[in-house]
C-alpha cells in the first residue's frame, strides 16, 4: 500500500475541530425530536399500512401534533391507549386513523403497565432486527466477506420488478452491492410511500415492500451463486429515520445516510436534518448497516480541485456525527469522488492524491468512491476510459466500495449491458494492477504528497473557522458548497419539537444502552 507522508498532528487537529463542531450541537440532539422520528417509533412498534396515500404512522403523529402532545413522544400515547383498550399498537393506530380514537383523551394508565407494553414491543422489534443482523453475519460466514473494493452498481428502471431482473443479472456479472435508485422526488416527501413501485421516474420509491421484493431477489441469486449480495437504498430526506428503520427490518446492508446532504442539496431545515440523521444512524448502527456519505455532491456543485478541502472537511464532520450515533469505522462508508476536469494536465495525479488523502484520514473505513459524472459527455468511449482510470485509482488507494461508472453516464439510466461492461472494466483493472502499489512509493517532496498536504491544511483552516463560528452560522454564510442555508429556513422545520420532561423513546433508549452511547 502506498503511503502519504503527513504529520499526524495535522490529522489530529482537523479531527479535533470536527469533533468540536459536532459536540456543540448536543443540545439539539438530546433535547429535540421530530415528526419523522416519532413516526419511526410507531413503525418500530409495528404500526404500518396506509389510508389512500397517507401512511397510518403519519396520521397518528399528526393527531398528536394537533393535540399538542407530541412533545411527550408518540410511544407513550399509543402504549397508554393499548393498555386502556387492550388492543394492539396497529389496532390503536387504525382507531386514530378512522377518527374514532383521541389518544390524549384516554385516561392515564398505571405507569408500570404502559412501560411493560412498551418494553414488550421494543423487545420484539429489536429481536427481529438482531435476527436480520445475524442472518447477514451468518451469510458472510458461509459465503465469505465482501470483496474490496466492492463492485457497486445501481438499478433504476422505475419498476421494482424490472429492477430485480437487472440486479440479478448484475450479480451474476460480479456485482457485490446493488443500489436501488430512489425516485428523485422522494427526499421532499414528509412520509414514506406505501407498496410496490411499478411506475417511477428516475427510480422507485424507498418503500418497505420494494425493500422486501429486492431483498428476496438478491437472496435468491446469492444462494445460487454462493455470495451474500449487499442491498442499498437511501435513508435521506424528510423521512430519513423511517427509511432506516424499514431498512433494518427488511435487512438492507448499506444505506446512503449523510449528515448534511439534505440541508445543502435539498434545502431541508438544518435542525430537522441533524436530528433525523442522529436517530437514523443509530438505527443503522444497531442493525449493523453500513452507512455511506455524499461528499461527491460538493464536487459536482463546485470545482473539484479548488474545493477539494470541502470534501475532506465534510468527511471528518460526517465521521464525528457517525461516531456519536454509535457507528463503527468499519461501517462508515465515507464518500468522495473522481470529478476533476479530465482535460487538466496531470488530473490523474490530483485524483490519486485526493483519494489517498481520504484513505490516510480514514484508514479503517470502507470508503465509497464515486465515478466521473460531471465531465461525462455522451461520448461513451471516452467515459469508458475515464472509468478505467477511476478504477485504477481505487485499486491503488484501497477504496472500500467502488460505485461503478457507466459509459452511458449523462445519457440514460444504465442499460443492462452498460452495467456488464462497467463490471468487466473494473474487474480487468483491479486484477491487472492488483499488487502494483507494492512496487512503488510516493515521493515525499513530489506533487502528490504536497497536494494532499495542501488539501489537508485547507481543510484544517476551514474546520477551525467552522468550529469557531458554529456549524449553523457557517452554513448560513455559504461556507459549504457555496450554498447558504439558515437555521430557521428550509423544509421540515415545523416538524421539530422540544421534548418535554416526560418524553420517552424506548427504541432510542435501548439502542443507546446497547451501543454504549453516553
Amino acid at each position: 500500500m502506498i503511503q502519504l507522508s503527513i504529520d499526524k498532528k495535522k490529522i489530529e487537529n482537523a479531527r479535533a475541530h470536527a469533533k468540536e463542531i459536532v459536540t456543540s450541537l448536543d443540545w439539539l440532539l438530546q433535547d429535540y425530536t421530530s415528526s419523522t422520528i416519532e413516526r419511526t417509533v410507531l413503525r418500530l412498534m409495528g404500526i404500518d399500512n396506509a389510508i389512500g396515500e397517507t401512511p397510518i404512522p403519519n396520521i397518528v403523529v399528526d393527531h398528536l401534533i394537533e393535540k399538542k402532545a407530541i412533545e411527550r413522544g408518540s410511544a407513550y400515547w399509543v402504549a397508554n391507549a393499548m393498555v386502556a383498550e387492550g388492543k394492539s399498537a396497529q389496532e390503536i393506530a387504525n382507531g386514530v386513523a378512522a377518527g374514532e380514537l383521541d389518544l390524549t383523551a384516554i385516561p392515564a394508565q398505571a405507569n408500570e403497565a404502559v412501560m411493560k407494553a412498551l418494553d414488550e414491543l421494543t423487545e420484539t422489534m429489536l429481536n427481529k432486527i438482531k435476527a436480520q443482523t445475524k442472518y447477514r453475519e451468518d451469510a458472510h460466514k458461509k459465503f465469505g466477506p465482501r470483496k474490496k473494493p466492492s463492485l457497486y452498481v445501481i438499478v433504476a428502471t422505475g419498476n421494482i420488478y424490472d429492477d430485480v431482473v437487472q440486479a440479478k443479472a448484475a450479480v451474476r456479472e460480479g456485482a457485490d452491492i446493488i443500489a436501488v435508485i430512489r425516485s428523485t422526488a422522494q427526499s421532499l416527501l414528509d412520509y414514506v410511500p406505501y407498496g410496490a413501485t411499478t411506475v417511477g421516474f428516475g427510480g422507485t420509491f424507498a418503500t418497505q415492500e420494494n425493500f422486501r421484493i429486492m431483498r428476496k431477489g438478491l437472496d435468491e441469486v446469492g444462494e445460487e451463486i454462493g455470495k451474500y449480495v449487499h442491498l442499498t437504498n437511501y435513508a435521506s430526506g424528510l423521512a430519513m429515520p423511517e427509511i432506516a428503520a424499514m431498512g433494518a427490518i427488511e435487512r438492507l446492508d448499506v444505506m446512503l445516510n449523510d449528515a448534511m446532504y439534505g440541508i445543502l442539496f435539498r434545502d431541508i431545515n438544518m435542525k430537522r436534518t441533524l436530528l433525523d440523521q442522529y436517530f437514523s444512524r443509530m438505527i443503522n448502527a444497531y442493525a449493523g448497516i453500513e452507512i455511506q456519505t455524499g461528499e461527491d455532491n460538493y464536487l459536482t456543485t463546485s470545482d473539484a480541485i479548488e474545493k477539494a478541502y470541502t470534501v475532506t472537511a465534510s468527511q471528518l464532520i460526517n465521521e464525528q456525527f457517525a461516531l456519536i450515533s454509535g457507528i463503527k469505522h468499519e461501517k462508515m462508508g465515507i464518500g468522495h469522488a473522481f470529478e476533476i476536469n479530465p482535460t487538466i494536465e496531470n488530473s490523474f495525479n490530483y485524483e490519486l492524491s485526493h483519494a489517498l488523502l481520504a484513505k490516510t484520514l480514514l484508514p479503517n473505513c470502507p470508503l465509497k468512491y464515486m465515478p466521473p459524472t460531471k465531465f461525462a459527455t455522451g461520448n461513451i468511449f471516452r467515459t469508458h476510459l475515464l472509468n478505467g482510470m477511476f478504477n485504477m485509482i481505487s485499486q491503488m488507494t484501497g477504496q472500500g466500495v467502488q460505485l461503478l461508472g457507466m459509459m452511458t453516464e449523462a445519457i440514460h439510466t444504465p442499460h443492462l449491458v452498460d452495467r456488464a461492461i462497467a463490471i468487466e472494466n473494473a474487474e480487468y483493472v483491479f486484477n491487472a494492477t492488483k499488487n502494483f502499489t507494492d512496487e512503488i512509493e510516493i515521493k515525499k517532496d513530489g506533487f502528490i504528497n504536497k497536494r494532499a498536504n495542501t488539501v489537508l491544511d485547507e481543510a484544517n483552516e476551514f474546520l477551525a473557522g467552522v468550529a469557531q463560528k458554529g456549524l449553523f452560522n457557517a452554513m448560513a454564510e455559504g461556507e459549504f458548497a457555496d450554498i447558504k442555508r439558515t437555521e430557521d429556513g428550509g423544509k421540515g422545520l415545523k416538524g421539530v419539537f422540544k421534548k418535554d420532561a416526560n418524553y420517552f423513546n424506548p427504541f432510542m433508549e435501548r439502542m443507546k444502552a446497547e451501543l454504549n452511547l453516553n
Partner: protein
Amino acid sequence: MSIIIDPTKIKPYGDTLDDGRMQFSFSLPAPANEQGKEAAKIVLSKMGLDEIEICYYKDLGEGFTHFIAYANTSVTVDLTTIKVKTVETPVMDMKETEEFVENNIGRTLTVIGACIESDAHTVGIDAIMNMKGYDHRYGLERYKCFNALNMGAQVTSEELLAKAAELDADIILVSQIVTQKDIHIKNLTRLIEMAEAEGVRDKMLFLCGGPRINHELAIELGYDAGFGTGSYATDVASFIAFHYAEKK
C-alpha cells in the same frame, strides 16, 4: 486521384467511401450461443442491413446476451435537403456579452433558473448558472449584465412563475436531467401551459436545457430556445443578449 463525395447521397463511412459500415451494440433476451447469435443477426437483417458480422457476444445472466456487431447499410441521405432548427445567434464570451448588453440593451436582465418539478438533479442548471461555471466558462451569476437567480432543484412550476413575477424576470431558464418515460416533456409542457394560462408566456423568454433537449424540441414545446448536451453558459448568454437586442 481523390475520393468524390456526392452530398445528395451520403452513406455511413467505415474505411471506404460508401461502404455503409456501422457499429452496433445491443442486448437480447436470448441465449449466449449460436441460436442467440442468429437472433441478433436477424434483428440487424430485418433492419435492412447486410454483410452482418456478430463479432462478439457475452452472457449477461438472467437469459440476456450482449452482442457487438458490424453491418452495412444501403440507405443514403441527401444532405442538401436537410434543414434543422438550431440556435443561430453567434456565440460570444462573457466579456463580449457584457459589452454587447451594455451597448445594445442598456440594462441588467433578470434570469431565473430552476430544475423543475420532480427533477432533483441540479448539475445542468448549476453548470449554466453557478458563479464558477463549468469547463472554464463562468456561469450567468458571474455576468455583470445579468441579475441571475438559481432556484435549485424540485422547484414547482407554480413557485418558479411566482418568483418570476416577484422579480419581474426577463428570462426563465429550465433544466431537465431526468428523462425516464419522457418525464422531462411532461414537466416542460406543464410549465409552459401554466405560463400561458397566467398570461405571462410572452412577457419573458422561456429557455430550456438538458441532455435530451434540442432547439427543435424546445420550439415544438413552445419555448424560445433549447440547449442540449455540450451547451455552455456562453451559448445561453449570447442567445439572450441577441434576442433582447433585437426586441429593443
